[in-house]
């Protein structure tokens, strides 16, 4: 072979073509996505942890396709991560919504039609999310150049093989720095049962409360005496019998004898005298040990309330406020000791650094930073534009909340240090969501010419033939319309037959319309809302890396309940689930397309593969939820929520909102006023300003401040070393920060789950 002959590469196929869409990439994407989906569904239900997965899939893709198979090209790995994240991403939408049905005592099992209809609705949502967002790729990525920090980070990882040794080293340094920063923040999630002689030390370090320590000592005394108090054992006996009766009823749902027994046992349990701070699981375990069916030593379990000793974290550094005794009482003042445990409060916990308290700011001013390298990296990658997010956070937490507290607009029972939490729930979030909606409307209006051009370009996709036609790199409008139509039919079918179906009566705004028509209208409204919400979420994640999925999902459920009536919970949750899945898929697809743009992938291939595989996600998530519910039912007689291993924390938030809507507690006017402000903000410097400010009011300030540090760091580095340098070296380093935390969080949470 002459020197001038084209070089044969292992990244080309046997025919010499550049490896992009290959069987290896598709199989890798499906398998990695399915494993991540099931694992993160479980983690989300148990501890509230979710993860988009693109960064993890990119790293795994390198390991598997490039490392093990020794042939994965940059673009092949990109296809692998695109599919993996498409299959994985749906779980965050489903676990936020569907488990609420278990919490509200609806029966959802493989033999109920609602389970399958909800799965169908989620599949429809996934397809709609993808096809609705495709026409906006040109506007958001080509024209508006949204940054998509995580997608940019994934792009930097994928490009690392060709970026040169120095940049690869910078990327690795970023990962190492991220791991070093995050390790002491994440490690304490791993806990072991504490020994009795460690308790005093753990109380001093505020790892264990005095009550928990006292309870642990009591349990230890039972183990030593091999005897528990009579009341505890009796409660355990009744509770065990109740659990067994519930399991029996689950197997024979129509058995009146089981129903009667359950009622009797529930009444007996209620009538028993309280047993203090001992949980039901401990009572049952004590009963089992008393009966000789379990070892007494089995009571030494964190699950039963035995004190836990976490692995080392920042909190163990013991950085505290200096002690200032109260002149009147001689004890510590409330400002120094908020929890009144006679110790000055910690200013550095595992997850936050409270700079406000170090500086002595008033208690109602929350000025704490999250220890989150990903937020730092995302802020740096966003750069100057992210300052608007910081400004919104400052407005909400450093101006609005302290003023509201000072004016006496919060209940007298709210202490100064509780002001930020009160404000977040009562007005920051509703106003923030309103600002987001208004900002998004202005964003769409301002970008309308660009959207129109993008759609025109797509319409030409099937017809343009002359020379190089960039339009043929995109999916055309016809297939998108066909897929959207198919998904809409699926959603309509799911809606028409879910819950009471045709027998349901509309009691909301659609009161008086025939149920089939009412549900049709609701589906149409939901589809328009999905389109709009998809744009909001894609814009938010494009500009900042955060997306208010939970807030938008809550609004969907509220909207459906307003239309159909507050009793039609199944329809509301089903459409909420479809929307959640749709918007997560929309944001994920846009992020993947951005990564594809950075590495030179062909959008059409990514779009086709994402649409073809995205339906797998909801099936896996719903199957996993069903499996977990069945195991819980067998073990505890409760499908999900408190009393089980999977407390579904995010669904509990939705449950509160559903109860709020039913109780008429939603502050609709605040949403509206926020929307007006969001629209007006968008008239000025740039149309998406309302989105950024709204997002920052909606999110906890601790992440906004850390993110702001990243934005400012970008500006300082740009000023000192020049913009090109700040980009060239800052991007791989920040990609490392984002990926390092994601990988470590996944590893730590996997360990937590595996240890039970």
């Amino acid at each position, binding site marked *: 072979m002459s*020197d*001038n002959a084209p*070089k044969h*590469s292992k*990244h080309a196929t046997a025919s*010499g073509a*550049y*490896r992009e869409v290959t069987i290896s990439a598709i199989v890798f994407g499906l398998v990695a996505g399915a494993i991540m989906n099931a694992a993160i569904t479980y983690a989300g239900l148990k501890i509230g942890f979710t993860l988009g997965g693109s960064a993890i899939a990119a790293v795994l893709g390198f390991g598997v396709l490039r490392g093990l198979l020794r042939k994965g*090209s*940059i*673009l092949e790995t990109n296809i692998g991560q695109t599919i993996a994240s498409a299959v994985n991403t749906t779980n965050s939408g489903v676990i936020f919504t569907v488990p609420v049905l278990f919490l509200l005592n609806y029966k959802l099992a493989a033999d109920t039609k609602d389970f399958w209809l909800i799965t169908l609705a989620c599949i429809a949502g996934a397809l709609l999310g993808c096809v609705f967002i495709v026409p906006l790729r*040109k*506007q958001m990525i*080509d*024209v508006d*150049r949204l940054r998509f920090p995580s997608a940019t980070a994934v792009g930097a990882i*994928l*490009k690392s*093989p*060709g970026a040169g040794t120095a940049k690869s080293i910078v990327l690795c340094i970023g990962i190492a720095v991220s791991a070093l920063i995050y390790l002491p923040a994440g490690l304490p999630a791993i806990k072991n049962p504490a020994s009795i002689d460690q308790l005093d030390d753990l109380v001093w370090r505020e790892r264990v409360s005095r009550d928990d320590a006292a309870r642990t000592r009591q349990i230890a005394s039972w183990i030593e005496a091999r005897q528990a108090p009579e009341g505890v054992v009796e409660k355990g006996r009744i509770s065990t019998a109740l659990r067994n009766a519930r399991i029996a009823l689950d197997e024979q749902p129509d058995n009146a004898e089981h129903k009667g027994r359950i009622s009797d046992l529930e009444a007996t349990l209620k009538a028993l005298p309280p047993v203090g701070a001992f949980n039901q699981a401990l009572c049952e375990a004590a009963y089992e040990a008393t009966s000789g069916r379990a070892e007494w030593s089995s009571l030494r379990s964190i699950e039963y309330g035995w004190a836990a000793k976490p692995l080392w974290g920042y909190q163990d550094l013991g950085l505290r406020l200096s002690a200032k005794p109260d002149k009147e009482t001689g004890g510590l003042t409330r400002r120094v000791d908020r929890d009144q445990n006679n110790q000055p409060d910690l200013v550095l916990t595992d997850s936050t650094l409270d700079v406000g308290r170090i500086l002595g700011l008033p208690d109602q001013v929350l000025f704490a930073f999250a220890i989150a390298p990903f937020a730092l990296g995302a802020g740096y990658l966003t750069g100057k534009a992210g300052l608007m997010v910081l*400004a919104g956070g400052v*407005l909400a937490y450093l*101006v*609005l909340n302290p003023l*509201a507290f000072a004016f*006496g*607009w*919060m*209940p*007298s*029972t709210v202490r100064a240090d509780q002001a930020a939490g009160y404000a977040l729930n009562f007005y920051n979030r509703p*106003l923030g969501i309103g600002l987001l909606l208004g900002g998004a409307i202005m964003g769409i209006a*301002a970008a309308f010419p*660009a959207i129109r*051009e*993008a759609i025109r*370009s797509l319409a030409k996709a099937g017809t343009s033939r002359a020379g*190089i036609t*960039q339009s043929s*790199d995109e999916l055309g409008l016809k297939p998108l319309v066909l897929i959207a139509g198919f998904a809409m039919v699926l959603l309509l079918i799911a809606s028409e037959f879910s819950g009471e179906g045709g027998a349901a009566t509309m009691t909301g705004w659609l009161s008086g319309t025939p149920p089939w028509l009412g549900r049709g209208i609701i589906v149409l409204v939901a589809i328009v809302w999905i389109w709009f919400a998809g744009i909001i979420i894609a814009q938010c994640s494009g500009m900042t890396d955060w997306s208010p999925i939970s807030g938008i999902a809550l609004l969907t459920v509220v909207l459906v309940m307003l239309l159909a009536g507050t009793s039609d919970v199944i329809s509301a949750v089903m459409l909420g689930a479809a929307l959640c899945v749709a918007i997560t898929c929309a944001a994920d697809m846009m992020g993947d397309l951005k990564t594809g*743009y950075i*590495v*030179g992938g062909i959008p059409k291939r990514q779009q086709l593969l994402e649409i073809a595989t995205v339906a797998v996600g909801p099936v896996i998530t719903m199957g996993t939820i069903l499996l977990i519910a069945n195991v819980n039912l067998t073990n505890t007689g409760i499908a999900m929520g408190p009393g089980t291993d999977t407390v579904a924390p995010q669904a509990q938030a939705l449950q509160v909102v559903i109860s709020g809507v039913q109780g*008429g*507690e939603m*502050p609709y*006017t*605040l949403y509206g*006023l*926020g929307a007006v*402000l969001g629209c*007006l*903000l968008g*008239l*000025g*410097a740039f149309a998406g300003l309302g989105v950024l400010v709204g997002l920052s*009011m909606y999110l906890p300030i601790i992440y906004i401040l850390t993110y702001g540090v990243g934005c400012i760091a970008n500006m300082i580095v740009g000023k000192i070393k020049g*913009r*090109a340098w700040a980009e*060239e070296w800052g991007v791989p380093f920040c990609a490392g920060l984002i990926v390092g935390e994601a990988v470590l969080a996944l590893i730590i949470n996997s360990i937590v789950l595996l240890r039970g």
Partner: protein
Amino acid sequence: MKLAAFLLICASLILGVIASVTAYLPPLSLGHARLEGLTLNAPAGAVLDDAGKPSSTPLLRSGAKLTAENLSTLGNAGVKRVRVKEFSFARWPEWWLFLIACAGLGAGAFIIKRENRLAVERAAAGAGVNTGPGPDQAFANLCAQVDQLRTDLKSASTPDDRLRLILERLSEAQNTSIAAFIAARPILISRLGVGGYARLMDTFAAAERQINRAWSAAADEVEHESLTCIEQAASLLEATKGRLSA
């Protein structure tokens, strides 16, 4: 002027959100008649402890109905406002503040729009300071970089040389000319309008994607793909030139 407009927007936004917060907080001074029958959406007042300080126990819990008796109790306890579930403009004395905030936001937006337009016009006329190369210059630089690369590739003797050349030159183009062209977005929008800019970026972005793909293929040592992408990028840049000068 622009700074003043930003300050106006900030002040108006603060005023707007503060006024909004009071929407569900009618003052007790409105009188019993307008407040009776409303439902509390947060606790109100606080029972005093033995030391005469407010305790954590509220006088009225969330969900309580406001009656004449309740309102008197709250008034006597010094409570000025209560948070209720129901909204009415008649119970929102600060609505005018919200309107002022809206007017301020509108005025600020108008000034910023005008200032931005003037700044872009100045920059387009070459009077801008430190704005970097204009879009035309940045685009010409990019075309020249790609053309030079194509020429130099012909004279490169080995595949390794060609791949190294592609990686180096395209990296440089990405960090300089492409970045500068994208940074000139406001000037291009003022010249072409949003629709015209979108049409321009349709081909430019396609060219940029081909450059990115050529880089990736070179990094993966798939030379023929990289060369093909560079040729396609050159054609697309030619098409973009037509739209830029139109």
